[in-house]
């Protein structure tokens, strides 16, 4: 029902938007580049007004008698060394007569002989020219030629590849994606050196014109999946894409659900592993977070390190993560229900101790719990935004004032502090699910306060029903548990060693089922030792 309301609201907003749309559309009409340089430059000036980062450099091809031309580029996006040395200098020195040649010949000559850049394109409309210049290319307009050349001179300031901030590892590659899309694609390409790895790009966002690029392995990824991803990306019609989160909201299967059905990662090795499984990665310019689809719930419990470590340990850690997830959504609800409804579930001695601790507490357990959850969320949120030097003050306030003083003042019981602390800490075992977990925790807490254990059981059941009906790009969200598949359990709660991962998850990839070609691995067979 909630999703129904959400859909209705979406339709309403879309209708509201349509009435604004008309004027925008007219402006985007195609204007062809004309042969007269002065006219072109006038059009350019009209469009960019006095924007001071757009440089228009006028000069003559091949010295003073040559044709007049203008080089347009954005200061800061184009590298001045390339522009000076490889474009302007050879063009000025071009020691050939260009006056008598036709437009196509001029273009051909320049392309073949006179500029030293690796990527050249011919542009026919003004919007293309703008797009190209704003991407960092230098655009060359020549008098008498009804088209323009885009010359790759891209080069801008960017962060260097550094360690990921959100997915730290002890063992495994330390590099992370950065804000520049090209660097990100190169990071993936360095992991998968295979011509079948395809990058296809799109430009999304009417105003921001963000480049978005999808990456997949041609023979492994299902063509329907690629088609679906492209379809959903093309359907996005909005002003701005500033982060991959924007894309995520547009392409989700069920936008009303609290669970994200699109995965994200900051690490090239994770993205590469997912592409190798048959998934599609979506790289958005301007953000280090790369999206991967389809996304299943279990991926939140997988860490890249699992595959680099011994599988016994990896399995153990995964089970711990799952337990942690259940603790983080259930602990407050469970505590409230056993203190409010089901005292008989607590061993007597513990019950007495708990009753003693709660003796002077003025609120019912539910209110107490809600209060503590809110306080913790406040501390957490503050901790993220806090300037680093103040951080310590916060932890002192959190630990001493809330932990110690509130208990001794009798505002809250000591067991509650323990419960909330373990809830909070467990939440960080599964960081990608933390946002959904907070909501689930509150829902279950409310159910527990109203209906006790019955409410929790029904709540969990409802969550299960909801999740098992979810799909991510046609792939069941709870796979391989729902629908249950015994073979795919090799990489679920249990993780079998890498050499036993002989097939990709079912239904994810095309016919290329085998990932491992020699089983058992080299070294297991003792017979050919000598």
């Amino acid at each position, binding site marked *: 029902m909630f999703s129904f309301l959400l859909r209705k609201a979406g339709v309403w907003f879309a209708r509201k938007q349509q009435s604004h749309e008309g004027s925008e559309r007219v402006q985007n009409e195609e204007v062809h580049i004309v042969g007269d340089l002065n006219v072109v430059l006038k059009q350019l000036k009209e469009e960019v007004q006095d924007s001071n980062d757009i440089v228009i450099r006028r000069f003559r091809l091949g010295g003073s008698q040559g044709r007049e031309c203008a080089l347009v580029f954005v200061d800061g996006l184009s590298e001045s060394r390339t522009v000076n040395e490889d474009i302007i200098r050879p063009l000025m020195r071009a020691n050939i007569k260009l006056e008598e040649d036709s437009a196509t010949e001029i273009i051909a000559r320049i392309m073949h002989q006179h500029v030293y850049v690796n990527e050249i394109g011919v542009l026919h409309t003004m919007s293309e020219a703008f797009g190209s210049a704003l991407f960092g290319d230098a655009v060359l307009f020549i008098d008498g030629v009804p088209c323009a050349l885009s010359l790759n001179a891209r080069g801008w300031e960017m962060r260097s590849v550094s360690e990921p901030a959100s997915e730290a590892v002890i063992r495994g590659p330390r590099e992370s994606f950065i804000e520049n899309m090209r660097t990100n694609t190169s990071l993936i390409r360095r992991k998968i050196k295979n011509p079948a790895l395809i990058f296809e790009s799109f430009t999304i966002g009417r105003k921001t014109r963000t480049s978005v690029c999808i990456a997949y392995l041609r023979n492994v990824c299902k063509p329907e999946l690629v088609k679906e991803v492209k379809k959903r990306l093309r359907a996005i019609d909005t002003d701005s894409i500033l982060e991959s989160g924007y894309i995520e909201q547009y392409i989700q299967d069920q936008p009303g659900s609290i669970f994200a059905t699109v995965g994200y990662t900051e690490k090239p090795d994770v993205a590469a592993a997912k592409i190798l499984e048959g998934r599609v990665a979506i790289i958005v310019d301007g953000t280090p977070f790369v999206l991967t689809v389809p996304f299943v719930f279990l991926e939140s419990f997988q860490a890249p390190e699992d595959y680099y470590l011994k599988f016994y340990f990896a399995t153990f850690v995964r089970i711990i993560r799952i337990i942690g997830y259940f603790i983080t959504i259930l602990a407050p609800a469970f505590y409230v229900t056993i203190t409010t409804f089901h005292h008989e579930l607590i061993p007597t001695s513990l019950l007495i101790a708990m009753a003693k601790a709660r003796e002077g507490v003025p609120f019912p357990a539910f209110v107490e719990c809600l209060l503590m959850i809110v306080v913790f969320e406040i501390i957490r949120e503050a901790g993220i935004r806090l300037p680093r030097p103040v951080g310590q003050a916060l932890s002192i306030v959190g630990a001493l004032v809330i932990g110690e003083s509130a208990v001794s003042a009798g505002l809250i019981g000591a067991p509650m502090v323990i419960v909330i602390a373990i809830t909070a800490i467990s939440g960080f075992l599964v960081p990608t699910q933390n946002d959904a977990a907070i909501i689930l925790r509150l829902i279950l807490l409310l159910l527990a306060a109203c*209906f006790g254990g*019955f409410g929790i059981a*029904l709540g*969990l*059941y409802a969550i299960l029903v909801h999740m098992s*009906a979810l799909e991510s790009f046609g792939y069941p969200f709870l796979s391989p548990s*729902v629908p249950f598949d015994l073979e795919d359990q090799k990489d679920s709660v249990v993780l079998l060693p890498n050499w036993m991962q002989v097939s990709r998850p079912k239904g994810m990839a095309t016919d290329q089922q085998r990932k491992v070609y020699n089983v058992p691995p080299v070294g297991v067979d003792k017979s050919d030792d000598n």
Partner: protein
Amino acid sequence: MLSVKQLSFASALFIVASSLLIKSVYMFTFQDSWISVLAAILVALLIIGIYGMLGRRHPGLCPVNMSEAIFGKVLGKFIAVLYIFFFLSLVVLNLEDTGSFVTSSILPKTPEAVVYVLMIVVCAMTVSKGHKMCMYSTMMVILVGSILVSNMFLLANKADFKNFLPILVHPPKNYALAVHGLLMLPLCEIFVLMMFAPDMDKPEAIGSALRAGILIGGFLLFIIVVRDIAAMGGYLQFTNNPTFSAIRLIEIGDFLTRLEILYASILITTFTFKISVCFYAAIAGMARLLRIDNYRIFIGVISILIIVATRGIFESTFEHNEWKRSAPAYSAVFLILLPILMLLVSFVRFGKNPKKQTASQKGSENEENTGLKPDMASGET
């Protein structure tokens, strides 16, 4: 599309739900109940054979459409309405069962109506997912099954095999009554899952799916009954809820106790599943009978009707217990008599090999006009 595996695990889960509240079998055969269970499973397999044959002869048709196809327009519609009523009554009865369990063992001070409302809300949500509700049944059966089996081992120290003695001492009528009760209450009720026939990827295999369901569910039922007898012995007759009481006995090293919470949560979730399936069967049947594509429009109204009906169905526990004695007879009409009748009429009218109808009959238009008219004519001549 539902696979055969998913449907069989769904039917197993369906059986497990009622198995947890089973009591009537102990009233008739006490310590010999495990024999009744085995016999009931065998008989159930025979009856499932009838369902399977119906499924093979009319693949992709749910009982509602099937009765229309077999009995013709007027009588068929009447029987279809009876089936819808039966499914609705199952919803109401099971909801009542769960409600009384919850109010008696978990939330003694809560009015039953609150329990009904909460459960129906969750069921309505499940029903709105359509046949996808069977998807998670495999995982649930594995979870529930492992809990039940582990419970059996945890009760090993309380088990006494003398409790099974003496064997075969009750009058034969008691065994017959017990088998009948078991057949009707947990086992053959999976007939309701025939309503998922149009959603299956291999509709003609529905018989084998149900058979596998009986075997899995029957195994779990057998484990439950054996454990109860072994642990409880003579006390079986005095408790209102033998399984609940048996699990209460678990006590390992002063630490692993109070496992009845596990039992309670299993019971609540499996019953919610069962009620959702019956609920879906009822409203999907209505939609198919009335040729409406979207069965979801019924959810709201029927939910409210169900709550009202459940509130008023039994005035007292005594009345409830009285009903439990006659419930098997009531179910037998729909689970044994009518299917046999359907099969017979189908044989008489369509001969050995009824023209295969397409599986895509999902409650939509005129199967009478397309595939059946020629058959009817040939059947009558």
